[in-house]
């Protein structure tokens, strides 16, 4: 490779890196002042790009369009903090992080609904004649990107080290309570940091969009890359994300130029995974050694959770069995298909109740483990002639081992590293599934997988498959019940309440979290296997990031600690598209998809607010008393 091409690769890497740095700066800023990993960070950049595009399309001059678009991004971000995060006052960190996932979906849905999915075109700021430097061509817009980044860096340094508000932000980040005593309002600081995050993201997006082929669904990818920038550089540092972003841009560009563009994503996210495993505090970050973590997180108590199997469990389980069996008789054919997919989703969500509800860890990549199951079943039954049950078991064991290895590294440090690690793992596996064609069949997948059979029993029709999935769901439910109503479940709840006290009782936090993750992975793999046996084809598409969002929404709707709620949440998620179609019609699929995302996002945000301020409890209590009183209307309270 000659120097000129290498120079070309470096230039485009640095330009992209500058965008990642913008987004990463927002990540670390918000995380430092509020502790929240804001998943909507990439969507602010997307919003900035889209708004600039539509303002320009409305004949507004560029010099006005960019600032207005950036400003709107800041306002949207601040608005989300004031209207949603501040309302969920007693929410714990996991809930708040999931809420920002809701923001991300909300923005994406709103933009898709309103703007459609056309790519966004914006003219470059100062012409498009490339500059030539020793044979390497540089686009003026690339200089704009890097130049803006330098400007912002200088401004931020000045802001943080030379202004009162900057000091206040830093003080509030290091000790909220202490800062409150000297009159710094933590809530307001949170809102400011969100506004800053919105401005940074929006600016990056607006400056970047003229040289990009940007579509509205770019937000997730941008968010991930910005997060990688922040994680590489170190979340706790102000300027680490800049270094992280530039390094990440370079690696990505070099991977594409020197190895293969097909593996760009896998290499880039593989790098993130390695950093999270080897140096979770980031390249520039410091880890606070000394005392074992004495941090007590305020947990919104779910009241007393039983930790021993009781008669109530028997009754409830019986009711669940009866209801699900009754459904198999009542449901019409099309609704039965819905119920079937709901069952498959419920299996994944049951695992997540243990992982997220009990062990407090967020996974955004259960699709990875579903894929493991899907391809294990597909490949081993089709190409190796294994019996389906053996292939299914193999997939579960493989998924469990994968979770064990990942968990062993990720859970060493407290925090929400799993969220990003699982997401990057998903990206790596999606690429592998597309590229390892000899095993996975590439994007076309593995068609022709036979329906599930065991001991010579075939399960062909929806009716028959329903019973298989029903059986599997109930089995997972029993397993999860058995775990939560045991000393292990008790230890997990103890850790939730007070980690240090639980450790002082001998509970091994790391291994308990690993156990929950392994269980969740095995459940997801089982679901993946059942899924491909039903559809007859294994391909990467159904297990992408969108499925992760559906799992998170289902988990939140059902309740983080509610095993039976899993099925309910899953049913709502699976049925929602049909309901949307029934209500709004199927005319325009694009805006329909946008509407679906919009509703998902709203649901997430509203449900978490309701859960965290207790109104969800009041509603469910009311329904329960209404049901137990034989559906009589509630007497008016006096």
């Amino acid at each position, binding site marked *: 490779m000659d120097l000129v091409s290498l120079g070309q690769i470096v230039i485009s890497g640095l330009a992209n890196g500058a965008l990642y740095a913008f987004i990463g700066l927002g990540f670390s800023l918000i995380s430092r002042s509020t502790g929240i990993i804001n998943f909507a960070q990439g969507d602010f950049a997307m919003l900035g790009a889209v708004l600039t595009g539509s303002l320009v399309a409305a004949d507004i001059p560029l010099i006005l369009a960019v600032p207005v678009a950036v400003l709107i991004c800041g306002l949207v971000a601040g608005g989300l903090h004031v209207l949603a995060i501040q309302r969920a006052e007693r929410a714990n960190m996991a809930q708040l992080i999931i809420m920002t996932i809701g923001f991300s979906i909300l923005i994406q849905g709103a933009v898709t609904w309103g703007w459609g999915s056309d790519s966004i075109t914006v003219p470059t700021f100062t012409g498009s004649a490339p500059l030539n430097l020793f044979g390497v061509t540089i686009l003026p817009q690339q200089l704009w990107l890097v130049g803006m980044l330098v400007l912002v860096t200088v401004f931020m340094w000045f802001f943080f080290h030379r202004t009162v508000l900057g000091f206040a932000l830093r003080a509030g980040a290091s000790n909220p309570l202490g800062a409150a005593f000297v009159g710094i309002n933590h809530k307001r600081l949170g809102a400011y940091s969100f506004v800053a995050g919105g401005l940074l993201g929006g600016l990056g997006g607006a400056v970047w969009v003229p040289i990009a082929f940007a579509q509205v669904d770019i937000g997730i990818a941008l968010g991930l890359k910005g997060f990688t920038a922040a994680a590489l550089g170190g979340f706790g540092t102000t300027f680490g994300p800049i270094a992280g972003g530039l390094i990440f841009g370079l690696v990505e560009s070099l991977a594409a130029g020197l190895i293969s563009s097909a593996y760009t994503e896998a290499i880039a996210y593989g790098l993130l995974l390695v950093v999270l495993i080897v140096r979770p505090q980031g390249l520039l970050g410091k880890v606070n050694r*000394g*005392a*074992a973590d*004495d941090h*007590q997180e305020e*947990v919104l*108590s*779910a*009241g*007393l*959770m039983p*930790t*021993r199997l009781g008669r109530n469990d028997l009754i409830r389980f019986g009711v669940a069995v009866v209801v699900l069996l009754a459904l198999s008789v009542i449901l019409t054919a099309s609704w039965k298909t819905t119920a079937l997919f709901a069952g498959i989703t419920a299996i994944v969500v049951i695992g997540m109740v243990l992982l997220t509800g009990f062990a407090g860890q967020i996974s955004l990549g259960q699709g990875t483990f579903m894929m493991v199951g899907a391809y294990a079943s597909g490949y081993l039954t089709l190409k190796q002639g294994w019996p389906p049950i053996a292939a299914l078991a193999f997939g579960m064991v493989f998924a469990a081992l994968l979770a064990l290895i990942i968990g062993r590294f990720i859970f060493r440090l407290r925090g929400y590293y799993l969220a990003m690690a699982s997401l990057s793992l998903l990206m790596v596996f999606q690429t592998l599934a597309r590229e390892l064609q000899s095993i996975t069949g590439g994007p076309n997948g593995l068609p022709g997988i036979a329906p599930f059979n065991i001991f010579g029993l075939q399960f062909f029709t929806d009716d028959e498959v329903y019973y298989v999935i029903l059986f599997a769901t109930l089995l997972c439910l029993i*397993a999860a019940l*058995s*775990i939560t109503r*045991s*000393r*292990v*479940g*008790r*230890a997990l*709840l*103890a850790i*939730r*309440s*007070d980690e*240090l*006290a*639980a*450790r*002082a*009782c*001998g*509970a*091994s936090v790391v*291994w*308990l979290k690993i*156990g*929950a993750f*392994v*269980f969740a992975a095995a459940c997801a793999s089982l679901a993946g296997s059942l899924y491909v046996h039903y559809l007859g084809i294994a391909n990467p598409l159904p297990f992408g990031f969108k499925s992760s969002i559906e799992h998170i929404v289902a988990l939140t709707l059902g309740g983080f600690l509610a095993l039976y709620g899993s099925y309910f949440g899953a049913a709502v998620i699976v049925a929602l598209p049909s309901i949307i179609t029934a209500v709004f019609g199927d005319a325009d699929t694009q805006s329909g998809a946008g509407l679906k995302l919009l509703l998902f996002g709203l649901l997430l945000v509203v449900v978490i607010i309701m859960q965290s301020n207790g109104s969800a409890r009041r509603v469910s209590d009311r329904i329960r008393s209404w049901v137990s009183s034989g559906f009589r209307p509630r007497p008016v309270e006096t």
Partner: protein
Amino acid sequence: MTSAHNSEGVVNAPVLQVENLSVRFGGLRAVDSVSFSVMPAEIVGLIGPNGAGKTTTFNCISGVIVPTEGEILIHGRTVTPFTPERACAMGVLRTFQNVRLFGELSLRENIMMGAYSAGTCGMVTAMLRLPKHRRLERLAAERAELWMERLGLTEYADAVATTLPLGLQRVAEVARAMAANPQIVLLDEPGAGLNKVEKEKLSDMLRSIAAETNCALLVVDHDMGLVMGLVERLVVLDFGRLIAQGLPNDVAQDPAVIVAYLGTA
């Protein structure tokens, strides 16, 4: 190293030995080569003015802080690595200054958590309800009943632990620690927030526990009234160094201790 005689006059091996323990935070020597030991069933007070290094020493023994130098031995075996789990596995249990019961568990389940270290059993064993899990659960339930009965908590067994009055919560923490069948329990300011009557009851309770179970107690407290009435021996720290140890009355008259507490004239 000190060696004490128990009531029968037989020389015993110490349950806890702290040897040349040092902790430095940057340039600050929070604890500076401190050595002392505790015998089985002995009640020892660890005292000293503010900043003397009591809490740091206490945190080292319970595995919360990794010491810069020195060793901690339980029945002659070194505690490594310094983690709370490891300390617990070796029979070192603790209570907390600001009581830390589990808010999502009932009182009974809190005390059952104390017996968690009685054996290891993984998630699969628990899921399949194998005999080992059954045995550990029965053991935990028995110990919880025993200690609730013994410390008068039975009537609150099903209450949410964190809603009980502070006095009861302190007793419950002791019960949780005792359910582990510990070798030694570290009590972090057990009298804080209690009134005089409650403190006396707590003292009596702790004395009878030490006598009946052969479990040693190491008490850190500012409250000299409680400490002098409760402990058999005192270890006094000042500026991270051990300045005196011995019987409470002797220590109280030690000039170095008086200087440490009152300052030089």
